[in-house]
């Protein structure tokens, strides 16, 4: 948070202040660190393990025999991994984690050492000299600019007298910041003082934005990645493929997938690195605009630069370390562009996290000594990285849209992009690649069903965050410590995502086709049997009460927003100077500011009551239908009950969802329709399961007589009390995915 900035001249009302919320540079940097770390750790770890295996006398034949044996015996021993390992002993390639984590540590040691030594090397290589005190005119201008920048650290100015281009560079490690001024820039001080000031201020803005370390770490990561991974990989990949073709034909597919994965990670590292650098330039420009009230000299230079940025002259925009001049000019005029969070960011984050999920989960499981692979804790690290990044992006975009009196319209597309990223990343999963190479992968319908589940997790996460951010926006804008609220919202989202991701990835373990599902799942066609299996495991193996409570609390977080808005209003009355004006470049009229603090119209009680009423009506209809069937045409229900014993559960779920759609549809305004629909689903869950079980019991009484086991004239409250909460909760979770998707598609069709 910057202190007392000058408002940008000419900024229209509703322009968000670029430095009142965390910048987008950090988000992209986190993605870069994640992809670089995992790619390097896995690649280096794999190389060390392989070298150790062959160095200790291992051969290709041993590997090929083990693969062949595993492929032959796996179908018979899928349920007993111990027996499989006795029949087909795998060559000792060392413990993955034991090698990969030291490789990761070595990587970061190398990065740290380069970061520490780089400033001195740069001074030496470029022959930079301290700016002499005799240049009094330049010195006094620089002192004035440093004072304007309000820097807390001491800055040392050095000159690169040989560089005739007017350029500067902020560099140096923590506590020893330096700004390099080129010979051309120093000459500019006399020729065009305003341009000189703009360039120096831009460099000081990097120091003020604290992005110098980020930029240099990004460059170091990129170059280290290229030299230590990308180049060796490019050289060895053809040989690896050749070895696979000649010696281990079964491993060819595995090798291909491995190379594709590494290429995808390499592309992520390069693209994310340049995105980090571009983002920091935009924020430095914005800082200059805040300091100088419009950055007119910078605009003049960028306008001239615009003519040089003709397409075809330079690298593609995604590979450039600087944004195009047109984009920089646009961001100077419209700060909303700095708050954009779009499908590409979400796709990149999700793809990277999905590519490395199994690795991170394995490291976490081994570090925390977790027994099961489906524990939410095993998904904690990927959930923090992916969920934190996406949630922060969504919150920023939503708050910026709110300040503009609008709502964020990118939720649907961003959700789809995140879903696509998660799904595409599974191609790089080593467990899946191994299963594919061994011919043990699930059939395509099962695979598609799993991708559907995973995609739903990604999509639902974005929509949940968008709804939560929209509801909590007035509370955040009025709060004394708004960032704490945003952080709490993101943390809740991360907790929710870790539960979802852990379940989704555990359900995707290869080998479903080798299982014999119990009746009635074995009667369903593929992939419904798989989806039924996933659904059943959720019922049969419900998560611990703590996890269930966490899910409930976080899922209902949006409903607490009106209360938070009221509380923050009270605290605002006590503490003047807090309010939405802080987040804007120009002060707002009082009426406009009050409108920003008005909570979105949310009628949770009404939606729940509506849902309960519609649910009761649907339950009554179900009961009447059962009675009619028992008297007139009992055949279909008898057959259905014979095949699917717990068919009332399915009926209850479907009717609950239908009620949710009706409640959402009845909302006249487009605002928060999906949330109302979810609440309607929750309300319908109160009477519907009981009605479904009672209908079935009364059907049995009428059809088979009162002596039948299934006949219960009075409603079975015990069964209803035990099963109703489960059915209601999981159907509401389903509604959390389906209803936002429906409203998103509907809104898009309307537009």
């Amino acid at each position, binding site marked *: 948070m910057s202190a007392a900035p000058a408002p940008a001249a000419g900024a229209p009302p509703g322009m968000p202040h670029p430095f009142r919320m965390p910048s987008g540079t950090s988000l992209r940097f986190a993605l870069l660190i994640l992809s670089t770390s995992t790619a390097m750790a896995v690649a280096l770890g794999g190389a060390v393990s392989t070298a150790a295996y062959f160095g200790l006398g291992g051969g290709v034949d041993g590997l090929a025999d083990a693969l062949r044996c595993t492929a032959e015996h796996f179908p018979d021993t899928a349920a007993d991994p111990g027996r499989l390992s006795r029949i087909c002993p795998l060559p000792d390639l060392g413990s993955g984690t034991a090698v990969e984590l030291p490789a990761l540590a070595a990587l970061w040691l190398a990065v740290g050492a380069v970061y520490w030594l780089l400033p001195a090397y740069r001074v030496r290589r470029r022959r930079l000299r301290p700016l002499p005190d005799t240049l009094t005119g330049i010195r006094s201008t620089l002192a004035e600019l440093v004072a304007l920048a309000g820097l807390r650290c001491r800055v040392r100015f050095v000159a690169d007298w040989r560089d*005739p281009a007017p350029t500067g*560079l*902020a560099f140096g490690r923590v506590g020893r910041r330096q700004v390099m001024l080129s*010979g*051309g820039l120093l*000459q500019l001080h006399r020729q065009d003082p305003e341009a000189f000031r703009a360039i120096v201020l831009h460099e000081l803005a990097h120091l003020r934005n604290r992005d110098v370390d980020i930029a*240099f770490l990004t*460059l170091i990561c990129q170059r280290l990645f290229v030299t230590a991974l990308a180049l060796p990989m490019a050289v060895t990949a053809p040989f690896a493929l050749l070895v696979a073709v000649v010696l281990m034909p079964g491993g060819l597919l595995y090798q291909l997938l491995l190379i594709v994965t590494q290429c995808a990670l390499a592309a992520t590292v390069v693209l994310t690195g340049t995105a980090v650098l571009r983002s920091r330039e935009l924020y430095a420009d914005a800082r200059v605009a805040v300091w100088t009230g419009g950055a007119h000299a910078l605009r003049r230079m960028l306008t001239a630069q615009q003519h040089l940025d003709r397409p075809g002259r330079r690298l593609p925009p995604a590979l450039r370390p600087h944004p195009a001049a047109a984009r920089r000019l646009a961001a100077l005029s419209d700060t909303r562009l700095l708050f954009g969070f779009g499908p590409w960011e979400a796709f990149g984050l999700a793809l990277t996290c999905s590519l490395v999920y199994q690795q991170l989960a394995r490291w976490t499981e081994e570090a925390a000594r977790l027994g099961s692979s489906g524990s939410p804790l095993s998904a904690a690290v990927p959930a923090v990285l992916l969920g934190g990044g996406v949630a922060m992006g969504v919150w920023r975009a939503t708050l910026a849209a709110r300040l503009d009196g609008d709502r964020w319209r990118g939720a649907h597309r961003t959700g789809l992009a995140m879903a696509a990223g998660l799904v595409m990343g599974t191609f790089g999963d080593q467990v899946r690649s191994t299963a594919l190479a061994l011919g043990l992968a699930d059939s395509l319908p099962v695979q598609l069903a799993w991708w559907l589940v995973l995609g739903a997790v990604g999509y639902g996460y974005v929509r949940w965050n968008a709804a939560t951010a929209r509801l909590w926006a007035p509370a955040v804008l009025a709060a004394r410590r708004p960032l704490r609220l945003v952080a709490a919202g993101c943390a809740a989202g991360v907790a929710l995502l870790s539960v979802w991701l852990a379940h989704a990835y555990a359900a995707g373990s290869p080998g479903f086709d080798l299982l014999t599902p119990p009746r009635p799942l074995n009667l369903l066609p593929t992939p419904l049997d798989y989806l039924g299996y996933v659904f059943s495991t959720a019922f049969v193996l419900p998560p611990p009460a703590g996890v269930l409570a966490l899910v409930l609390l976080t899922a209902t977080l949006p409903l607490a927003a009106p209360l938070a808005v009221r509380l923050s209003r009270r605290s605002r009355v006590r503490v003047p100077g807090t309010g939405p004006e802080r987040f804007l470049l120009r002060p707002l009229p009082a009426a406009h500011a009050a409108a920003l603090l008005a909570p979105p119209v949310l009628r949770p009680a009404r939606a729940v009551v509506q849902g309960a009423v519609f649910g009761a009506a649907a339950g009554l209809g179900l009961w009447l239908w059962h009675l009619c069937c028992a008297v007139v045409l009992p055949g279909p229900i008898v057959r259905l009950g014979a095949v699917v014993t717990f068919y009332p559960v399915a009926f209850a779920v479907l009717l609950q969802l239908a009620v949710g759609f009706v409640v959402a549809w009845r909302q006249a305004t487009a605002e928060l329709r999906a949330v109302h629909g979810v609440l309607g689903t929750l309300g319908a869950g109160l009477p519907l399961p009981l009605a479904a079980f009672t209908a079935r019991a009364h059907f049995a009484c009428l059809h088979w007589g009162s002596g039948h086991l299934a006949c219960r004239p009075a409603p079975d409250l015990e069964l209803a009390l035990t099963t109703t909460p489960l059915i209601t909760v999981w159907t509401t979770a389903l509604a959390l995915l389906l209803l936002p998707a429906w409203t998103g598609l509907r809104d898009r069709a309307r537009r």
Partner: protein
Amino acid sequence: MGGAQDGAAERARGLAREAVRQLAPEELALFEETAAAYFDDPRQEGRRTRPEPLGIGIDAVLIGTLTQFALPVAAAVVSNIATDALRREGRRGRWWRRSRRTGGAEGGGGGGGDNPFAAPGTGPAAVAGRPPGPGELERLRRIAHDRATALGLPPAQAQLLADAVIGGLLAPPAPDEEENAS
């Protein structure tokens, strides 16, 4: 050789300073620092500065400073004079050795002036030297002009710069230069 290089650098610096004083006196404020950096590592002369990926990213602003052209042009001229002197001294050295073998004792103003142990081409005559003749001046002017245009200076300005540098060869050294040289 270090002394010779320092002498040549001083001479080139003086020529460049004189040219800048004539054509762009406002640049004199930053001249000494630029020249010091330039002569600190003359091997860097031909190399282009690599674009800085973390710089401001605006290359539309062009700075037309004469200093950045005057220094390499003056260095090229001085280097050429020194090379010529070296060649002349080489020829004279061959004649001197031949005359010594034949017992003659003609001449004696070798490369080192009064110092008979100095290497050829290192004396003041080689760098500051005697005033060049009209033909040699024309050749040096062409060299200066070619160097300036090779560095990207437009022909008219290259001509002005070449004239200023060659004019500096003929003019007596400025008092401050004499002080520096001593």
